[in-house]
Protein backbone atom coordinates (compact mmCIF):
# COMPACT_ATOMS: atom_id res chain seq x y z
CA UNK A 1 0.00 0.00 0.00
CA UNK A 2 1.46 3.34 -0.99
CA UNK A 3 1.71 5.71 1.93
CA UNK A 4 0.22 9.12 1.34
CA UNK A 5 1.47 12.15 3.18
CA UNK A 6 -1.24 13.24 5.55
CA UNK A 7 -1.65 16.76 4.12
CA UNK A 8 -2.47 15.39 0.68
CA UNK A 9 -5.81 14.30 1.99
CA UNK A 10 -6.71 17.95 2.31
CA UNK A 11 -5.28 18.91 -1.03
CA UNK A 12 -7.16 16.14 -2.79
CA UNK A 13 -10.34 16.63 -0.84
CA UNK A 14 -12.95 19.21 -1.68
CA UNK A 15 -11.78 21.92 0.66
CA UNK A 16 -15.00 23.88 0.29
CA UNK A 17 -17.05 21.09 1.78
CA UNK A 18 -14.79 20.37 4.73
CA UNK A 19 -15.92 23.18 7.01
CA UNK A 20 -19.61 22.52 6.49
CA UNK A 21 -19.15 18.78 6.84
CA UNK A 22 -17.14 19.06 10.01
CA UNK A 23 -19.86 21.27 11.46
CA UNK A 24 -22.53 18.86 10.37
CA UNK A 25 -20.86 15.95 12.12
CA UNK A 26 -20.26 17.85 15.33
CA UNK A 27 -22.05 16.59 18.44
CA UNK A 28 -24.97 18.77 19.31
CA UNK A 29 -25.56 19.68 22.95
CA UNK A 30 -28.94 19.13 24.53
CA UNK A 31 -29.32 22.84 25.08
CA UNK A 32 -28.97 23.52 21.35
CA UNK A 33 -31.63 20.95 20.58
CA UNK A 34 -34.00 22.27 23.23
CA UNK A 35 -33.37 25.82 22.07
CA UNK A 36 -34.67 24.80 18.67
CA UNK A 37 -37.33 22.17 19.27
CA UNK A 38 -38.95 23.43 22.45
CA UNK A 39 -39.12 27.12 21.60
CA UNK A 40 -41.84 28.43 23.87
CA UNK A 41 -41.48 25.64 26.41
CA UNK A 42 -37.89 26.42 27.14
CA UNK A 43 -38.28 30.13 26.60
CA UNK A 44 -40.72 30.16 29.51
CA UNK A 45 -38.31 28.11 31.59
CA UNK A 46 -35.37 30.30 30.66
CA UNK A 47 -37.34 33.39 31.59
CA UNK A 48 -38.00 31.90 34.94
CA UNK A 49 -34.35 31.09 35.53
CA UNK A 50 -33.24 34.52 34.41
CA UNK A 51 -35.74 36.34 36.57
CA UNK A 52 -35.02 34.19 39.60
CA UNK A 53 -31.29 34.67 39.12
CA UNK A 54 -31.88 38.40 38.69
CA UNK A 55 -33.88 38.66 41.90
CA UNK A 56 -31.32 36.60 43.73
CA UNK A 57 -28.52 38.84 42.60
CA UNK A 58 -30.21 42.07 43.56
CA UNK A 59 -31.21 40.54 46.86
CA UNK A 60 -27.68 39.32 47.51
CA UNK A 61 -26.18 42.65 46.57
CA UNK A 62 -28.45 44.52 48.93
CA UNK A 63 -27.80 42.04 51.70
CA UNK A 64 -24.05 42.44 51.26
CA UNK A 65 -24.33 46.17 51.32
CA UNK A 66 -26.54 46.15 54.39
CA UNK A 67 -24.26 43.63 56.10
CA UNK A 68 -21.17 45.72 55.46
CA UNK A 69 -22.84 48.89 56.70
CA UNK A 70 -24.15 47.00 59.73
CA UNK A 71 -20.75 45.61 60.64
CA UNK A 72 -19.26 49.06 60.19
CA UNK A 73 -21.79 50.55 62.60
CA UNK A 74 -21.42 47.63 64.98
CA UNK A 75 -17.64 47.84 65.17
CA UNK A 76 -17.91 51.59 65.81
CA UNK A 77 -20.37 50.92 68.65
CA UNK A 78 -18.15 48.25 70.13
CA UNK A 79 -15.17 50.58 70.01
CA UNK A 80 -17.19 53.22 71.76
CA UNK A 81 -18.15 50.86 74.56
CA UNK A 82 -14.65 49.72 75.33
CA UNK A 83 -12.84 52.89 74.44
CA UNK A 84 -9.83 53.74 76.54
CA UNK A 85 -8.88 57.31 77.28
CA UNK A 86 -5.92 57.09 74.86
CA UNK A 87 -8.13 55.75 72.12
CA UNK A 88 -10.67 58.40 72.87
CA UNK A 89 -8.03 61.10 72.53
CA UNK A 90 -6.73 59.69 69.28
CA UNK A 91 -10.23 59.46 67.87
CA UNK A 92 -11.00 62.99 69.01
CA UNK A 93 -7.82 64.20 67.30
CA UNK A 94 -8.84 62.44 64.11
CA UNK A 95 -12.31 63.86 64.27
CA UNK A 96 -10.98 67.35 64.76
CA UNK A 97 -8.58 66.98 61.88
CA UNK A 98 -11.24 65.53 59.63
CA UNK A 99 -13.85 68.17 60.36
CA UNK A 100 -11.39 71.03 60.43
CA UNK A 101 -13.00 72.37 63.62
CA UNK A 102 -10.81 74.40 66.00
CA UNK A 103 -9.54 72.28 68.86
CA UNK A 104 -11.21 73.88 71.86
CA UNK A 105 -9.68 71.34 74.22
CA UNK A 106 -6.33 72.90 73.66
CA UNK A 107 -7.49 76.21 75.05
Amino acid at each position, binding site marked *: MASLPFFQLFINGDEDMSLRESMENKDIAL*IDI*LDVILDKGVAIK*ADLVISIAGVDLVYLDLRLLIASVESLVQSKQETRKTVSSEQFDTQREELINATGQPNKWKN
Partner: protein
Amino acid sequence: MCGLIYLYGLIPTKEETNQSFPSLKGFDGIGDLYTIPIGSITAIVCNLDPEEYSENRIKELINNDIEWLQEKAFHHHETVMKLSKIFTLIPLKFCTLYKNRESLETAVQSNDSKMMSTFALIKGNEEWNLKIYCDDQLLKDQVSQSNPVIEAKREEISKLPKGKQFFEKKKLDKLINSELEEEKNKVSEGIHLELKHFALKGNVKRTWSSDVTGRKDNMTWNSVYLISKPEVEHFLKQIQQYEKDMKEIGWQFEATGPWPAYHFSSFS
Protein backbone atom coordinates in the same frame (compact mmCIF):
# COMPACT_ATOMS: atom_id res chain seq x y z
CA MET B 1 -58.93 2.97 18.36
CA CYS B 2 -58.94 6.63 19.17
CA GLY B 3 -55.23 7.33 19.66
CA LEU B 4 -53.23 10.52 19.72
CA ILE B 5 -51.20 11.50 16.68
CA TYR B 6 -47.68 12.84 17.12
CA LEU B 7 -46.77 15.07 14.19
CA TYR B 8 -43.05 15.25 13.27
CA GLY B 9 -43.26 17.19 10.07
CA LEU B 10 -44.97 18.01 6.81
CA ILE B 11 -43.67 17.36 3.31
CA PRO B 12 -44.95 17.95 -0.23
CA THR B 13 -46.95 14.89 -1.26
CA LYS B 14 -45.20 14.68 -4.62
CA GLU B 15 -41.85 14.11 -2.87
CA GLU B 16 -43.28 11.24 -0.84
CA THR B 17 -44.61 9.44 -3.89
CA ASN B 18 -41.24 9.75 -5.61
CA GLN B 19 -39.24 7.84 -3.02
CA SER B 20 -39.73 5.12 -0.47
CA PHE B 21 -40.44 6.14 3.10
CA PRO B 22 -37.74 5.07 5.62
CA SER B 23 -38.52 2.72 8.48
CA LEU B 24 -38.31 4.74 11.74
CA LYS B 25 -39.45 4.02 15.28
CA GLY B 26 -42.03 6.33 16.85
CA PHE B 27 -42.02 8.46 20.01
CA ASP B 28 -42.93 5.58 22.34
CA GLY B 29 -40.23 3.34 20.85
CA ILE B 30 -42.83 0.75 19.87
CA GLY B 31 -44.85 1.93 16.86
CA ASP B 32 -43.46 3.03 13.50
CA LEU B 33 -43.67 6.34 11.71
CA TYR B 34 -46.13 6.53 8.83
CA THR B 35 -47.52 9.12 6.46
CA ILE B 36 -50.98 10.64 6.06
CA PRO B 37 -51.49 12.32 2.67
CA ILE B 38 -53.73 15.38 2.94
CA GLY B 39 -54.03 16.72 -0.60
CA SER B 40 -50.73 18.21 -1.76
CA ILE B 41 -49.27 17.99 1.76
CA THR B 42 -48.27 14.82 3.57
CA ALA B 43 -48.00 14.56 7.34
CA ILE B 44 -45.34 12.34 8.95
CA VAL B 45 -46.70 10.93 12.19
CA CYS B 46 -46.81 8.15 14.76
CA ASN B 47 -49.58 6.98 17.08
CA LEU B 48 -49.48 7.48 20.85
CA ASP B 49 -51.53 6.14 23.71
CA PRO B 50 -53.76 8.99 25.01
CA GLU B 51 -53.59 7.64 28.56
CA GLU B 52 -49.83 7.63 28.71
CA TYR B 53 -49.28 10.88 26.82
CA SER B 54 -51.93 13.27 28.10
CA GLU B 55 -51.08 16.98 27.94
CA ASN B 56 -50.63 17.21 31.70
CA ARG B 57 -48.44 14.13 31.82
CA ILE B 58 -46.15 15.48 29.08
CA LYS B 59 -45.89 18.89 30.76
CA GLU B 60 -45.03 17.20 34.02
CA LEU B 61 -42.32 15.11 32.38
CA ILE B 62 -40.82 18.09 30.52
CA ASN B 63 -40.59 20.09 33.73
CA ASN B 64 -39.51 17.39 36.13
CA ASP B 65 -37.81 14.54 34.35
CA ILE B 66 -34.66 15.76 32.62
CA GLU B 67 -33.67 12.25 31.52
CA TRP B 68 -37.00 11.68 29.83
CA LEU B 69 -36.74 15.11 28.21
CA GLN B 70 -33.21 14.41 26.99
CA GLU B 71 -34.12 11.02 25.52
CA LYS B 72 -37.26 12.26 23.81
CA ALA B 73 -35.71 15.52 22.64
CA PHE B 74 -32.91 13.55 20.98
CA HIS B 75 -35.46 11.19 19.44
CA HIS B 76 -37.47 14.08 18.01
CA HIS B 77 -34.33 15.83 16.79
CA GLU B 78 -32.81 12.75 15.17
CA THR B 79 -36.04 11.71 13.50
CA VAL B 80 -36.71 15.16 12.09
CA MET B 81 -33.06 15.48 11.00
CA LYS B 82 -33.21 12.19 9.10
CA LEU B 83 -36.44 13.20 7.40
CA SER B 84 -35.17 16.65 6.47
CA LYS B 85 -32.22 15.03 4.67
CA ILE B 86 -34.64 13.16 2.43
CA PHE B 87 -37.54 15.60 2.02
CA THR B 88 -38.31 19.31 1.95
CA LEU B 89 -39.65 19.31 5.47
CA ILE B 90 -41.61 21.67 7.68
CA PRO B 91 -40.43 20.50 11.12
CA LEU B 92 -42.88 20.62 14.00
CA LYS B 93 -42.03 21.63 17.54
CA PHE B 94 -41.36 18.96 20.15
CA CYS B 95 -44.58 17.23 21.27
CA THR B 96 -47.03 18.52 18.69
CA LEU B 97 -49.96 16.18 19.20
CA TYR B 98 -53.38 15.92 17.61
CA LYS B 99 -56.36 14.26 19.25
CA ASN B 100 -57.21 12.31 16.12
CA ARG B 101 -56.66 12.09 12.40
CA GLU B 102 -59.56 14.43 11.59
CA SER B 103 -58.23 17.29 13.72
CA LEU B 104 -54.80 16.93 12.09
CA GLU B 105 -56.37 16.96 8.61
CA THR B 106 -58.40 20.05 9.43
CA ALA B 107 -55.31 21.84 10.75
CA VAL B 108 -53.31 21.04 7.63
CA GLN B 109 -56.12 21.90 5.21
CA SER B 110 -56.74 25.28 6.79
CA ASN B 111 -53.05 26.20 6.44
CA ASP B 112 -52.57 24.66 3.02
CA SER B 113 -51.46 27.73 1.06
CA LYS B 114 -49.15 29.00 3.81
CA MET B 115 -47.50 25.61 3.97
CA MET B 116 -46.99 25.49 0.24
CA SER B 117 -45.25 28.87 0.29
CA THR B 118 -43.13 27.68 3.23
CA PHE B 119 -41.99 24.71 1.14
CA ALA B 120 -41.01 27.14 -1.60
CA LEU B 121 -39.04 29.23 0.90
CA ILE B 122 -37.10 26.43 2.57
CA LYS B 123 -36.42 24.18 -0.44
CA GLY B 124 -32.68 24.03 -1.12
CA ASN B 125 -31.90 26.17 1.94
CA GLU B 126 -30.52 25.39 5.35
CA GLU B 127 -31.04 26.75 8.82
CA TRP B 128 -27.93 27.60 10.87
CA ASN B 129 -27.68 28.82 14.41
CA LEU B 130 -25.03 31.10 15.86
CA LYS B 131 -24.38 31.62 19.53
CA ILE B 132 -21.79 34.16 20.63
CA TYR B 133 -20.22 33.91 24.08
CA CYS B 134 -18.09 36.49 25.87
CA ASP B 135 -15.54 36.27 28.64
CA ASP B 136 -16.92 39.26 30.51
CA GLN B 137 -13.94 39.61 32.82
CA LEU B 138 -11.51 39.85 29.94
CA LEU B 139 -13.71 42.31 28.09
CA LYS B 140 -14.31 44.29 31.25
CA ASP B 141 -10.59 44.81 31.67
CA GLN B 142 -10.35 46.05 28.10
CA VAL B 143 -13.33 48.38 28.46
CA SER B 144 -12.12 49.79 31.77
CA GLN B 145 -8.59 50.28 30.47
CA SER B 146 -9.34 51.72 27.08
CA ASN B 147 -12.10 54.05 28.17
CA PRO B 148 -10.72 57.50 29.17
CA VAL B 149 -13.86 58.46 31.10
CA ILE B 150 -13.51 55.37 33.29
CA GLU B 151 -9.77 55.92 33.73
CA ALA B 152 -10.32 59.51 34.88
CA LYS B 153 -13.07 58.44 37.25
CA ARG B 154 -10.81 55.78 38.78
CA GLU B 155 -8.07 58.37 39.35
CA GLU B 156 -10.59 60.64 41.02
CA ILE B 157 -11.84 57.86 43.31
CA SER B 158 -8.33 56.92 44.48
CA LYS B 159 -8.03 60.37 46.03
CA LEU B 160 -11.24 60.08 48.04
CA PRO B 161 -11.45 58.95 51.67
CA LYS B 162 -11.93 55.15 52.10
CA GLY B 163 -15.62 55.25 53.07
CA LYS B 164 -16.53 57.28 50.03
CA GLN B 165 -14.41 55.08 47.79
CA PHE B 166 -16.62 52.08 48.55
CA PHE B 167 -19.76 53.67 47.13
CA GLU B 168 -17.97 55.40 44.27
CA LYS B 169 -16.33 52.12 43.25
CA LYS B 170 -19.75 50.47 43.18
CA LYS B 171 -20.99 53.25 40.94
CA LEU B 172 -17.97 52.87 38.69
CA ASP B 173 -18.54 49.12 38.46
CA LYS B 174 -22.08 49.78 37.31
CA LEU B 175 -20.79 52.21 34.69
CA ILE B 176 -18.24 49.68 33.42
CA ASN B 177 -20.92 46.98 33.26
CA SER B 178 -23.31 49.09 31.26
CA GLU B 179 -20.52 50.19 28.90
CA LEU B 180 -19.58 46.52 28.53
CA GLU B 181 -23.13 45.44 27.67
CA GLU B 182 -23.41 48.24 25.16
CA GLU B 183 -20.11 47.31 23.56
CA LYS B 184 -21.01 43.61 23.39
CA ASN B 185 -24.35 44.35 21.78
CA LYS B 186 -22.88 46.77 19.29
CA VAL B 187 -20.22 44.29 18.16
CA SER B 188 -22.67 41.35 18.00
CA GLU B 189 -25.20 43.35 16.05
CA GLY B 190 -22.53 44.36 13.56
CA ILE B 191 -21.58 40.71 13.10
CA HIS B 192 -25.23 39.74 12.69
CA LEU B 193 -25.73 42.35 9.96
CA GLU B 194 -22.61 41.18 8.13
CA LEU B 195 -23.71 37.54 8.33
CA LYS B 196 -27.15 38.44 7.00
CA HIS B 197 -25.48 39.23 3.68
CA PHE B 198 -24.92 35.50 3.24
CA ALA B 199 -28.45 34.59 4.29
CA LEU B 200 -31.96 34.84 2.89
CA LYS B 201 -33.27 35.59 6.36
CA GLY B 202 -31.81 36.15 9.79
CA ASN B 203 -33.60 36.30 13.14
CA VAL B 204 -32.36 37.27 16.56
CA LYS B 205 -33.35 34.97 19.41
CA ARG B 206 -33.29 35.40 23.15
CA THR B 207 -30.02 34.60 24.88
CA TRP B 208 -29.70 32.08 27.70
CA SER B 209 -28.41 32.68 31.20
CA SER B 210 -25.36 30.71 32.32
CA ASP B 211 -27.64 28.75 34.67
CA VAL B 212 -29.17 27.24 31.57
CA THR B 213 -26.06 26.88 29.41
CA GLY B 214 -23.86 25.68 32.27
CA ARG B 215 -20.97 27.72 30.87
CA LYS B 216 -18.73 30.18 32.65
CA ASP B 217 -18.84 32.73 29.86
CA ASN B 218 -22.03 34.57 29.03
CA MET B 219 -24.17 34.12 25.96
CA THR B 220 -24.18 37.49 24.26
CA TRP B 221 -26.00 36.67 21.08
CA ASN B 222 -28.26 33.94 19.71
CA SER B 223 -29.45 34.07 16.12
CA VAL B 224 -30.69 31.87 13.29
CA TYR B 225 -30.19 32.16 9.55
CA LEU B 226 -31.80 30.63 6.52
CA ILE B 227 -29.04 30.18 3.96
CA SER B 228 -29.02 28.80 0.45
CA LYS B 229 -26.78 25.72 0.32
CA PRO B 230 -24.03 27.23 -1.87
CA GLU B 231 -23.68 30.16 0.54
CA VAL B 232 -23.28 28.05 3.69
CA GLU B 233 -19.54 27.59 3.26
CA HIS B 234 -18.96 31.34 2.94
CA PHE B 235 -21.12 31.96 5.97
CA LEU B 236 -19.12 29.47 8.04
CA LYS B 237 -15.79 30.79 6.81
CA GLN B 238 -16.82 34.27 7.90
CA ILE B 239 -17.63 32.95 11.37
CA GLN B 240 -14.30 31.13 11.46
CA GLN B 241 -12.61 34.43 10.64
CA TYR B 242 -14.38 36.20 13.53
CA GLU B 243 -13.26 33.40 15.80
CA LYS B 244 -9.63 33.81 14.67
CA ASP B 245 -9.67 37.58 15.02
CA MET B 246 -11.53 37.84 18.31
CA LYS B 247 -10.75 34.72 20.32
CA GLU B 248 -7.87 36.30 22.19
CA ILE B 249 -9.96 39.25 23.31
CA GLY B 250 -12.60 37.02 24.89
CA TRP B 251 -15.10 36.19 22.14
CA GLN B 252 -16.29 32.72 21.20
CA PHE B 253 -18.46 31.76 18.26
CA GLU B 254 -20.49 28.59 18.07
CA ALA B 255 -22.29 27.77 14.87
CA THR B 256 -24.50 24.70 14.67
CA GLY B 257 -26.32 23.23 11.74
CA PRO B 258 -27.71 22.43 9.34
CA TRP B 259 -30.97 22.36 11.30
CA PRO B 260 -34.35 21.50 9.90
CA ALA B 261 -35.92 24.89 9.16
CA TYR B 262 -37.64 25.26 12.54
CA HIS B 263 -37.41 29.03 12.68
CA PHE B 264 -38.48 29.71 9.13
CA SER B 265 -41.47 27.42 8.90
CA SER B 266 -43.94 29.03 11.26
CA PHE B 267 -47.32 29.58 9.71
CA SER B 268 -49.45 30.32 12.71
